[in-house]
């Protein structure tokens, strides 16, 4: 077991290395850099440029050095916990991100929990009542959830939440709690606001998860051992709980790898619409203004978040399913 976990963690290293290279390439691609745009902007407004500061930043972050060197500097910094400097916010990236990353994690975890809670019964019902009206109806609802663009659903829910429950528009908490330390009232306020993004992001994931669970369970139900159990006279309910559902549970844990990127993606998009204090809005503005360390480190955080999520799901799966431990760690 320990060997498997170790192997699995070691496998993350090349993955993250490649991801960081891709991200660096992407944020390096646009011509020019932030300092050039910044200087040009200041000059056009007729303000004086603090040559010293610019020169210091240039030297500190190695503008003008070869790409490889800058890449190594960036990665090396991240390993030491220095995520670079946000030119736009004029503070270290870690300070800009801080809370926002926690909220992103909160939204993602809550969404996955909700997705499971809804998809599990739906998947089981659809599989055990294949081709019934209920199955068709649920499939159709799921597809509708899949087909509706998240952002629009977010807008509509936001509007009705405001009209019916008086929830303040935008953000993840009432304005009075902004910048305050965490307290009971703040947590309640966050929970009141959390359900909209969670539902919105969850709709798409729920539909596809329920469909995959249905297909998986149908395969399992067609296997001979189910027939044997039935022949022994096991009642349907117990039969379902005892075997096929247990293997379906494994599938649920394994599916985090599919679900997590989708959830984080959706969360980013919805965050922009709802102006949530998660990573979405900052990421867009950082990308647009070529605030490269902010954008790059953000993307890197998201990548690490997904990779760690998948790692946790793999390890949990290894605990649940002995076959995986014995395979020797290479997934096919």
């Amino acid at each position, binding site marked *: 077991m320990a060997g498997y976990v170790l192997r699995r963690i070691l496998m993350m290293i*090349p*993955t993250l290395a*490649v*991801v960081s290279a*891709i*991200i660096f390439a*992407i*944020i390096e*691609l*646009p*011509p020019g850099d932030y300092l050039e745009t910044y200087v040009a902007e200041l000059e056009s407004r007729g303000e004086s440029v603090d040559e010293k500061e610019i020169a210091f930043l240039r030297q500190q972050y190695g503008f003008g050095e070869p790409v490889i060197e800058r890449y190594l500097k960036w990665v090396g910094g991240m390993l030491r916990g220095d995520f670079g400097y946000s030119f736009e916010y004029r503070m270290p990236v870690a300070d800009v991100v801080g809370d926002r990353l926690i909220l992103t994690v909160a939204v993602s975890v809550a969404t996955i929990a909700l997705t499971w809670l809804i998809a599990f019964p739906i998947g089981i019902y659809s599989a055990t009542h294949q081709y019934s009206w209920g199955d068709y109806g649920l499939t159709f609802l799921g*597809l*509708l959830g*899949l*087909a*509706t*663009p*998240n*952002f*629009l659903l977010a*807008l*509509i829910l*936001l*509007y009705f939440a*405001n009209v019916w429950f008086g929830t303040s*528009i*935008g953000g993840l908490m009432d304005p009075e709690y902004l910048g305050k330390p965490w307290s009971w009232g703040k947590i309640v306020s966050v929970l009141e606001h959390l359900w909209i993004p969670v539902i919105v992001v969850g709709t798409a994931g729920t539909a596809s998860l329920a469909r995959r669970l249905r297909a998986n369970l149908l395969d399992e139900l067609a296997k001979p051992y189910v027939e044997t159990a039935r022949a022994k006279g096991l009642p349907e309910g117990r039969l379902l709980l005892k075997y096929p559902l247990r293997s379906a549970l494994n599938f649920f844990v394994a599916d985090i*790898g599919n679900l997590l*990127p*989708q959830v*984080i*993606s*959706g969360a*980013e*998009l919805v965050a*922009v*619409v709802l102006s949530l204090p998660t990573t979405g809005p900052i*990421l*867009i503005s950082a*990308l*647009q203004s070529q605030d490269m360390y902010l*954008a790059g480190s*953000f*993307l890197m955080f*998201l*990548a690490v978040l*997904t*990779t760690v999520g*998948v790692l946790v799901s793999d390890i949990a799966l290894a605990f649940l399913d002995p076959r995986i431990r014995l395979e020797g760690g290479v997934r096919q």
Partner: protein
Amino acid sequence: MSGKDDTRQDAQERGTARDPGRPPHFVSTAPFDPAVTEQWTEAQERYFLASQWRLVWWKFRRHKLAVVSAIFLALAYGSILISEFLAPYGLHTRHVDHIFAPPQRVHLFHEGRFIGPFVYGLRYRLDMENLKRVYTEDKSRIYPLRLFCRGDSYRFWGLFQSNLHLVCAAEGGTLFLAGTDRLGRDVLSRMIYGARISLTIGLVGIAISFSLAIVIGGLSGYYGGWVDFLVQRWIEILRSFPEIPLWMALAAILPVTWSPLLVYFGITVILALLDWTGLARAVRSKLLALREEDYCMAARVLGARPRRIVFRHLMPGVMSHLIAAATLSIPNMILGETALSFLGLGLRPPITSWGVLLNEAQNINVVALYPWLMLPVVPVILVILAFNFVGDGLRDAADPYKA
């Protein structure tokens, strides 16, 4: 030869010796024609001799929802050929007197009297209290619709001048079936024009990702070994990354100076660059199974090159599955474009896609005051549902030999 004859004689002798009542064992030397003994019915003949694609089609036809969806999609794609004719107004025509006008309803009866399809005129008032434009139906003015009428002039596909429209308002009247936006442009017309971009972006994108998937998945599945290992790791990395942030990052790269057409292709390529992984995996797993088949071994022994084996012998076997898989990933692209354009990172006006139209509905005020600006989401949902149903039908039909 002689040995065979011997045994036959042996059997004959034994047969007669043991049971004199039984006719002697006899094998005719005349050529055997199975068609004489086993007559196929016409239905059987049709079924047995049908090509694979025909079988797929027959099986697909049984899936009613898929057929209806396919017809809907065909109509939608057909409409983009004649958008100019179908749209009541031009793409950029502004009605400055009718800004944020709500959708007008088509009536058939006026005070119990049948007059055919018509709309009432709109009366406009500015509500000074909450600064809202209020439009009310003016029942005294009746504007019957005209069919095949002359309206806004346009250049049909940029080729020739015309002003023929399927339907337009009566002289002096207006026809805003889906309302107007902040510049007084007819939302319905813009939706019809938007279909051109939104629907084709999925097709062009899937064409790119399909080719990538076939080449990369094909190499990986046929060669196996370290090629396969590298490709699979690469796919795993790409898939583990959240799509939308990566799309946003790539879209932010597109230079602002690019022409709308270049941006269109840029966005398509970006969507395709992240989409091919799923298809490539499907190609690979199918190829891994098929390359063990005897006919593939035969081709290899005959000295066929890998390219010929993959494209000539293996691809036909996986094609139907691939088409089904591709159909199921088109919706993803359409939604991707919509999301990017909605964020303002995708297509930019004057290009009009459904995502660009929805960009106008980014504000919570829209939901409260001008909900009809969200109408472009209706074709998005319908098209995505239709693609899903068609894809499901194709997937079931892709293996026609399975019951």
